[in-house]
């Protein structure tokens, strides 16, 4: 059994990311269960996807303390879902902060470095991806979700391979966005390997 959580901000494409993971796992013959935040929170609120892979899973929600991996699209959102991570779980983080309008207004914005320091102290396996660099290389913010999956697959957290994930991308994405997403996927993989 493998539990993976995706956390981010509405509009970052977390729903598609979780669908791709689920579809790839099914290609490998696993059963899956996922659940999403859909609705008002999709307008810039906190969104979380739960993906559970394997047989004999009842709850679509991952119980606290049982996520094998978390893919976080934003540092503060990573900290928010930390209670779900297993003691030896992996956290993959894109380090670009998305400042909520509310904190821009009040001026008491959080410091990204505080979030990352905290994560460094509490996560055994933390993979930090430089979001600015990733965006520059991918050239399109809409493909960062797929790029992060590239990073995730290289970190070895999934019970399926590159091939299944790539097939899932081809299956689920519309033809006209395919190429740019496959390129971003490769870039995400390269970034993990330090290229």
């Amino acid at each position, binding site marked *: 059994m493998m539990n993976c959580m995706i*956390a981010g*901000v*509405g*509009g970052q494409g977390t729903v598609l990311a*979780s*669908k791709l993971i*689920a*579809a790839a796992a*099914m290609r490998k013959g*696993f*059963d*899956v*269960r*996922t*659940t*999403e*935040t*859909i*609705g*008002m*929170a*999709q*307008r*810039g*609120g*906190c969104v*979380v996807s739960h993906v559970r892979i394997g047989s004999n899973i*009842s*709850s*679509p*929600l991952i*119980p*606290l*303390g*049982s996520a094998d991996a978390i893919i976080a699209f934003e540092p*503060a959102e990573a*900290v*928010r*879902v*930390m*209670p779900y991570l*297993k*003691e030896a779980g992996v956290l993959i983080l894109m380090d670009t902060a998305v*400042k*909520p*309008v*509310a*904190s*821009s*207004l009040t*001026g008491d*914005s*959080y*410091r990204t470095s*505080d*979030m990352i320091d*905290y994560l460094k102290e*509490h996560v055994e396996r933390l993979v930090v991806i430089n979001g600015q660099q990733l*965006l520059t290389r991918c050239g399109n*913010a809409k493909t960062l979700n797929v790029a992060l999956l590239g990073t995730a697959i290289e970190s070895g957290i999934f019970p399926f391979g590159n091939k299944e994930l790539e097939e899932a991308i081809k299956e689920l994405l519309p033809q006209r966005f395919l190429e740019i997403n496959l390129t971003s996927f490769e870039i995400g993989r390269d970034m993990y390997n330090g290229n």
Partner: protein
Amino acid sequence: MAKKLLMGNEAIAFGAMRAGVSVVTGYPGTPSTEVLETVAKHNDGSIYVEWSVNEKVALEVAAGAAYTGARTMVTMKQVGLNVASDPLMSLNYIGVKGGMVIVVADDPGPISSQTEQDTRHFGKFAKLAVFDPSTPEEAYTMIADAFDYSEKYGAPVLFRPTTRVCHSCASVEMLDNIPKKELEGFVKDSRWVIFPKLTYTKHIKIENNLKEMSDDFSGYEGNVLTGSGRKGIATGGVSHSYVCEVLKNTSAEHKLLKVSTIPFPQKLALSFLQGLDEVLVVEELDPVIENELISLCGLHSLKIKIKGKLTGHIKNAGENTVESVSGPIREFLGEGFGETSAHSKQADTLESKQLLSTQLEQPLPAQLEQTPPTLPVRPPVLCAGCPHRASFFAVKEATKGMNAVYSGDIGCYTLGNAMPLDMVDTCLCMGAGITIAQGLHRVEPDRINFAFVGDSTFFHTGISGIINAVYNQTDIIVVILDNSTTAMTGNQPHPGLGQTMMGNISDKISIYDVVSALNVSMIVRANPFDLKAAKEAVNAVVDKKGVRVILYEAPCIAVSKGSGRYLVDNDKCTGCKVCINKLGCPAIEMQDGKAKINPTLCTGCSICEAVCRIGAIRGENL
């Protein structure tokens, strides 16, 4: 056949298509929207699909179709059934010929709704059967059963998934299609005309049906009794999956009853109660199963303690989670749970409400050794470039210092209540902005009453409110925010756009023409991104009498291409934050004391340029 990854709502749609549904109607509403969309997307042309203008209309269209013997499905969210409750109540007396399933999605939490109402009550109130699936897999087959039962009893049935079933995906085993029955067609008969005399005889039949259904459902495969012992757990819906997750870790003896239907399967429940000392009922929303068990114990003089929401053992608001039910179950069974790891023990002590802060705004409490840094609140906001921001801002500026009240309505524009816009003083239900404003104005005629309404909401129930205001001579200003879509639920078409779910283009119904025909005293239209014109529209109507209408027209960014990007000139920007403080556009943030526009979010709507007094913001290519 093969397994397919399906979201609960897709499973319902595929299940209904498999069962031979031929007419599908509905009105969009989270978490139900994808059911109808999925049917439309996979329609080979043999199914008639429509977004109706509101839920009452949708239910009636489907009922008429079911009078012919066709299988029909209606989809809506829980509050939609409030709108459709009039036809629902009478339809049971009239009955249907073809199977008719009314899919009503409940939203425990609530995650995207204005109430936490429990549709199972509607089933009991209208004396209809309710099916309550616990997983997408179950929903896929259960919807076919729902059609069968509807035909067997000649009555519509309710099908009530909840958010965590609707928006969960699972691997679903796809089955062969069920052969369609021959269509008899509508046969003229007095049975289709409701009269008091008919109602009385039908009422007797309905009561008999309910008894029969209860027996029937005791043998239904969705209602399951397992285990043995002196303690029993009763559950249903998605809570069943949380209960199972917890029970995996126990060796304690117990019985487990899963209930998926109303009428309550009394016979099955009686064999569950047999030999029990106490019962814990785990369900979401209202204590429906719990009350049924209590009344059954009363009817049969059983001395069994029933624990649940009424006794404070299960929380009575918000959604359940594995954590929220784990504590009560462990306490109830008392023994047989293995030692848990320190980490998950900590997890258990967490109140489920706090757990939910992943969706809500408050930070989680310290539960690892060290307090995490304070987390930002992140309420949902209008998108960068949203035309509603421009409309609200124009009205706000133009009415500065006036004694005005701004009534809002349901849609993305409800988010206009957030700072810094702060332009939604009331919000109740679909269409109520216009009518609440009339009530406010009756008592406080010296205040200026604005009512904001979106285009889809205008067609849903907004028009009748305007008619009322004109007829009764109320002085209000209705601001119609026409963004050419139903945005909140993911951009569905509506009568103003002319596209239908069958892929046809029908004649567009012009909001301007409709409003003109209603005899309002004034109507002005403007592009909200043209701030000057938008403010002038307000100035033109604000000191007049009668029902005045401002029609702001600019498309939602989700259905239009942006018009470029704007930049802040770093040398000119003084860091005054006026742009941020006035607009709250998520694309603008402060960086090193200067405003900065995020190029990946900015759509080039231009309103920040108009706000910056020193001209530090300009279009990228200018």
